Each structure stands twice: as C-alpha cells, then as structure tokens.
C-alpha cells in the first residue's frame, strides 16, 4: 500500500505522480486531493486507488481496468468514456456522470445530478440515491440502475440499453421514445449479483425496466401549436 499527499501538488502533475507510485505497489491511497480535476483520468492496469476526500471534474475519465474508490464527493463528468474497471463513489456526484461509458461499473452510493449515463454505450452504472433529470439520455447500450427517485424525462431518446428503476412514479417521469416494462428473470439475477457484489440492500424483483421503443418512435414536432379556436372574435359579436 502506498500513499500520496497531494496537498501541495499542482493539478497538471498529479496523474504522473500517481502512475509513478503505482509502479511500486498496485494499491494507492490519495490524500488531500481537495477537488482537483482529471484525477486518474486515463489510468489503466490492474490496481486500486482510493481517494480519501473529494474530487473535481473528470475523475477516472477513460478508466481502463483499475478500481477507483472516492470516499468524498465527485464533480461533473466522472467516469466519462470509461472502458473497464470500477469507479466507486461513496457520497454524491455532480452531473453527466458516466457519459459515453463503454464498459466497467460505476457505483454511486449517494445521489447523482442530471444527465447520468449521457450517451452510455455499455457497462453498468448503479445509483443508490436519486438521479436528476434526463437520466440515461440518448443511451446506446449498457445498464443504468437507479434505486432512488428518478428525475423527469428519464431515458429520453434511448436507442439501446436499459434503465432499471423501482420508483413507483417512474411511468410519469419517462422521456420520449421509451416504454415501461417488466423485468426478466435473467435481468433480476444480474441485478441481485451486482447488489451483492457492492453490498447494496436491494432486491432485483422490485425493479421495472425502461426500454427504448424500436419502431414507431414518435416524430419530434418542431412546431407545437396550442390551438384555441373558440377565442375568435366572431363568437363574441356585440351589436349596437
């Protein structure tokens, strides 16, 4: 186990130091990250990095292989374009987490902001708390599992992939071109396996699935008139 105190390190030098330290041991703890950006961006290999406090933007972007655990909060765009590995956030996150993720697993034990899983293509994103608006917007694959309350327009324009929810009001919070479906046995099993792996107290069979509509997707109307023909003057004619 190695340690790095980043209190006096400039943001641009952090990742180089991390990679160097990981040559000495494949377990590393970072202290005093203090919300710096791009922490462990592009990190690959079989290692474990733990961050004791909070990070800023782009934590673990393009991650390929490592397990990254943050004990504090995480800023916007964490785990974007991730290839494989694990990104585990013990508290809460900003918006657009896991954008364009290709593979691997992101677990957020707290809440996440809007647009989680923006254009996600693979992998798993598990949100134990609530998600903001537009969760899973334009997803092209992968599994997004949200245990808490959904925000509005969930799954807007998904092309492929699944959003698992147990929000009782999920049906009224869906975006366009998706439908609300029951969960299959295989999917339930996968969820239970993940929950057990990450020590999440939840039951797969409580979930429903939001899936993309594959035919007859609604045509987006650019012009949306709100017709009120009854207000025409001819109906209110006064004489004299």
């Amino acid at each position, binding site marked *: 186990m190695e340690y790095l105190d980043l209190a006096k390190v400039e*943001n641009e030098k952090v990742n180089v130091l991390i990679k160097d330290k990981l040559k000495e041991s494949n377990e590393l703890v970072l202290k005093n990250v*203090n*919300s*710096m*950006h791009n922490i462990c961006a592009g990190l690959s290999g079989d290692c474990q990095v733990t961050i004791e*406090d*909070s990070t*800023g*933007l782009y934590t673990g972007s393009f991650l390929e292989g490592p397990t990254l655990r943050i004990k*504090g*909060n995480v*800023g*916007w765009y964490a785990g974007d374009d991730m290839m494989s590995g694990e990104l585990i956030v013990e*508290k*809460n996150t*900003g*918006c657009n987490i896991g954008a364009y993720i290709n593979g691997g697993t992101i677990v957020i034990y*707290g809440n996440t*902001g*809007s647009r989680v899983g923006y254009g996600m293509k693979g992998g798993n994103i598990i949100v134990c708390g609530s998600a*903001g*608006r537009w969760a899973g917007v334009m997803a092209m694959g992968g599994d997004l599992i949200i245990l808490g309350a959904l925000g509005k327009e969930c799954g807007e324009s998904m092309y492929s992939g699944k959003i698992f929810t147990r929000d009782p009001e999920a049906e009224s919070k869906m975006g366009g071109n998706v439908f609300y479906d029951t969960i299959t046995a295989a999917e339930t099993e996968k969820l239970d396996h993940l929950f057990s792996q990450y020590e999440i107290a939840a039951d797969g069979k409580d979930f429903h699935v939001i899936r993309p509509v594959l035919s007859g997707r609604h045509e987006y109307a650019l012009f949306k008139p709100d017709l009120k023909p009854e207000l025409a003057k001819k109906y209110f004619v006064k004489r004299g």
Partner: protein
Amino acid sequence: MCGIAGIISKQPIDISSNLLGMLGLIQHRGPDASGIAIFPKDEQVTLRISMNKEERIGEIRDLIGNYGKIKNERLISAGESIPMAEYLLEMDDDKLKPLHFAINGVEGLAVHSLGDGIKVYKEGGHLENLRDKHQIEMQNCRHGIGHVRMATESVEDINAAHPFVSPFYPELALVHNGQFTNYFKMRRFLESKGVKFKTMNDSEAASHLIAYAMSINGGNLEAALNDAADQLDGIYCIIAATESQIGFVKDKLGIKPLLLVESDDYIMLGSEQIEFSAVSEDLFAEEMEPGEVRVWNI
C-alpha cells in the same frame, strides 16, 4: 466559460477574503478578468469609477460636485489597464440614481459601484492583479458575489469584467456564467430606456435588464429574476445581489452548473464543488434545477 461565486454568512465577516479564496480555486475557469462585489454598510457613499484617461479626473470632480461633496479621493493608476478612482462622498440618497445616470451618460467613464452599501472591485487578468491593484480592505458584511472571466464574444477590458452594476438600480450587482443569444435585441430595448452601454459584453445587458425590472417592480429581486429567465435567451447562471437581497437564476436548459451548499454558518453558491472547500471542509453541494430562481433576504 466563467466561474461564479456567492456567499451568505450568518455573521458579518471579512467576506472579500472568502470570495477571493473561492475564486482562487476556480481560476482555471477564467483567466481573463476577475471581480467581487461586497455589501458593507457605511456612513458615506463610495464611488468606484474608471476613466479612459487620467486627465478626465477634473471632469469627474466637477460632475460629482453637482450631486454631492467629495470627502476623499484615491487614485488607482492604470497599470496594465485603465485609470480608476475611489471616492468617499457625502450626498443624499435620492441623488444616487441621478449621479449614476449622469456618469453613465458620459463617454469614457464607467461606474464600477456607487452607494453606501456596495463596493465592486474588478480587474483584468488573474486574481493577483485584483488583489495587488485594488487594496481591498477588510470590511465586515454578510454577503458578496464574485467572478472569474473567460471572454467569449467581447474584448477583455476592465470595464467588461464582472460584477456589473446599472444606473436603473444602483445597489444591484451581478455576475454571469454563460452566453446570451439575444443580447443585441435586449441592448436595443434597454438603450431605448435611457442607459448607455460601456462594453460589448452580454452580461452588461443582464445587469441593466434586471435593474430595470427592479426599478419598476419596487425592488423585488425574485420577480426581476423570473422576468429575466423569460426574456433572456441562451445559456446562463446569474447570481445577483443588492444590499438586502441575494439570489440566482438558472436557465431552463440546465447546461451551466450552479451548485448550492448550506452549512450552519454559510450559504454558498458556485460553479464547482471545489470552490466551497475554501470556506468549509467537504460539504456536498446540490445542483440547482433548470429554470430555478431563488432569493434570500439578508
């Protein structure tokens, strides 16, 4: 494009140090200029004014003379930008707006702040320039706003730095992150109401728009911010404050970040989580909803 900050303290403290600390952590969001507005209540009126040439100082003294008495004058030399002066004035409250309009109407002069409860400090370049050039004294008050700027569609001159003020409502200051897409229309409308623009920065339009709304709605910041949300087009987060109110508006598309955190001693607003660590350790900030408006009374 920019970074913004706002802070409300339950007790009066040295707000400017806190703001500068917060802004220091988001300097990367805007290297072109920085600025803060704080609201310490004073006996006298402070005028902070920029001029395009030092020679104009006589003209400024004459102009002020029509509205009040100069008690103290401190010149701030140009350095890399343009000369400024800070005045302590003795004048009646009802002369503040006319003086603000009078200076606004003169080419080459710009009010940075005018009032007995508002002070704006702004400068080009990094935060060090702001600190070094302006000698911001420690002044206790309960709230303030700050900004670091990355110029988008206008040039980087000191008058174009935020916070902005407006003669329509002198005690209002605001900071803005984003870009309006109907700035020119707004500017034409506001110019027809009698204000002169000093820059081509779209944020200046927001200050006049909100100040104008407040001047006709009896000083209601929340209603003015709601109006702004309807009239301003584009992407934006705005934090606006007067001596007695501070609030924000976030655009309906929810693209630019605005975080809020409340602790026992502080309420803080900002563009990035990291800002808050300047004041308090490890607090989780919530992202505000698209289209949200919220105002606090001080």
